[in-house]
């Protein structure tokens, strides 16, 4: 279970995000807010991508004191994923498969569900469209035994079929007891979720 204690994120001297306390039970959470409100900052701090003050724990493992155990339980998909352009998609899948202790069956299911079979093995990332990059990023986020899945604008640039597949996967992981936090500034969320508004770096439940 996720625990946030006195989380603060600064960009230079500017306080970009402040979350005094949050312990959500397993479920789907829709982080909603305007541009620049702090949605991505919130997800990135939970994913270990940016420095922060305070503490973040997942199943008792602190990101600060036990980063290895914490990060094994937490996966992240960025709004605009960026990867070294000479890599192949399968290179990245290989990294995440071994690091996040996923299974080959999981990977094959994701590749078929996101319809990546045509480009994942031989095409370098430099030739990917934004939709292909998004599919790869979502695949990496869904690999492994993660208990906290952080998705930043996951439905942007996806076609209808893969959107439906993604929604199914989110629902399946929810049933398996994971916490899924989705940042999106759409008007309607396609799944049953708890809404969390972000305004000026503060969460409002």
């Amino acid at each position, binding site marked *: 279970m996720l625990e946030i204690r006195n989380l603060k994120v600064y960009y230079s001297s500017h306080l970009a995000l402040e979350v005094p306390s949050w312990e959500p039970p397993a479920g789907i959470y829709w982080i909603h807010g305007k541009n620049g409100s702090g949605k991505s900052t919130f997800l990135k701090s939970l994913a270990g991508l940016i*420095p922060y003050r305070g503490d973040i724990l997942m199943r008792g493992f602190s990101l600060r004191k036990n980063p290895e155990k914490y*990060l094994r339980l937490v996966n992240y998909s960025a709004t605009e994923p960026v*990867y*070294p352009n000479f890599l192949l998609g*399968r290179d990245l899948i290989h990294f995440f498969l071994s*690091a996040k202790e996923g299974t080959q069956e999981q990977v094959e299911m994701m590749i078929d569900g996101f319809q990546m079979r045509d480009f994942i093995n031989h*095409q370098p990332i430099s030739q990917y469209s934004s939709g292909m990059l998004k599919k790869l990023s979502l695949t990496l986020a869904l690999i492994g035994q993660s208990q906290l899945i952080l998705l930043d604008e996951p439905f942007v640039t996806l076609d209808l079929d893969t959107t439906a597949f993604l929604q199914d996967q989110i629902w399946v992981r929810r049933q398996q007891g994971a916490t899924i936090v989705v940042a999106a500034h759409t008007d309607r969320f396609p799944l049953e979720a708890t809404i969390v508004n972000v305004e000026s770096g503060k969460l409002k439940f």
Partner: protein
Amino acid sequence: MRSIFIKVFAKGFFKKYIKVLLFGFGIIISYCFFTQTAGALKTGTSDYWSMLLPIKVLTDPILAGLFCFVALLYSGLAARYIVREMAAERNLFLRYSFIGIRKTLRWKTWVATVFIIQLPLYLYALYSLAVGYHHAGLRYGLFILTYLIALHVGIVTYVDRTLAYGTSFRNTKSTTRLGPLPLGLIPLVNHVHHNKISLILTKAVVLVALHLFADPLQKQDFQLLVLLALILSCLNIILLYRDFVLQSQQMAFALNLPYKTFARFIEPVPYYLILISPEIIYATAAAGILPGLGVFTISYVVFLLLLRSVILSTGNLPLRISKVLLFCFFTGLLFILYAAHLMLVGLSLAVAILLFYRFFQYSKLRDNHDS
């Protein structure tokens, strides 16, 4: 027409590569300070050490060859820049206007433009000629001048023909590999794909520096070995900076992978060992497997780790990095001059770890963008 071309291509070239040129200039100035120190250490030879580089360019075939090699790379960079700039959308009208004029006028314009771009090479060659003539005669002087002129003609011919017959850039093609790429080797593969010139140039300069100062390896003088490792690690700064740019911009995803912070700190060690393998091979060939080689290798890797942490703590500011680099170099030099070379290695490792733990999430990059 000539003034427009000089403005678009020559000034544009210098503007684009000013950081690299300043780095190179900074390294040469550091080298001059170093040779002054060596001149102080080896009494009575101060003048010789001060003018060592230009003298060697005129008299030592390896240094002359290195100068010619650097000139070739520089010229290749210039040619590539001109062709790409001419193919850019904003210069389309210039291109079509230019191709229509007489060949003689086209050539005169290119000769003048390329001369401005090649000016640093011509100036250094003339400086070497002046110094070398005074100290050691003109052994390879005329050959070097002739070579530069041949390169000049080569660039002009290449550029004129390429623009006359169209440009084609290699398209990225699909790749097949035998197996997945190890995460730690991604920076090395990045250099091969995108930084070939920097990689080759750095290795060439490093090997020549090793050749010049190979004596300490044979004498197993640990003090001089650590100094040599410090110099060589500083010469790799461009590659380390490119690693930082790659990792902060394209490999931020790796921060989400479940590794301990110390594991992230030592993760590039295998990559560094591969990177410095030419130097290790040369040192082994020159001096055999000696205890000194272990000290040299460990010092080299530790200094590379330190420089990586220094770049992380400075962020994406090349000029500030070059200032911090000079500070690190001269501070290290002081330690070595006072026979505290082993303490320097230990201290460098400690500082590298501390800085890495504080800045490994590229916070300085964000702060520099925000400020």
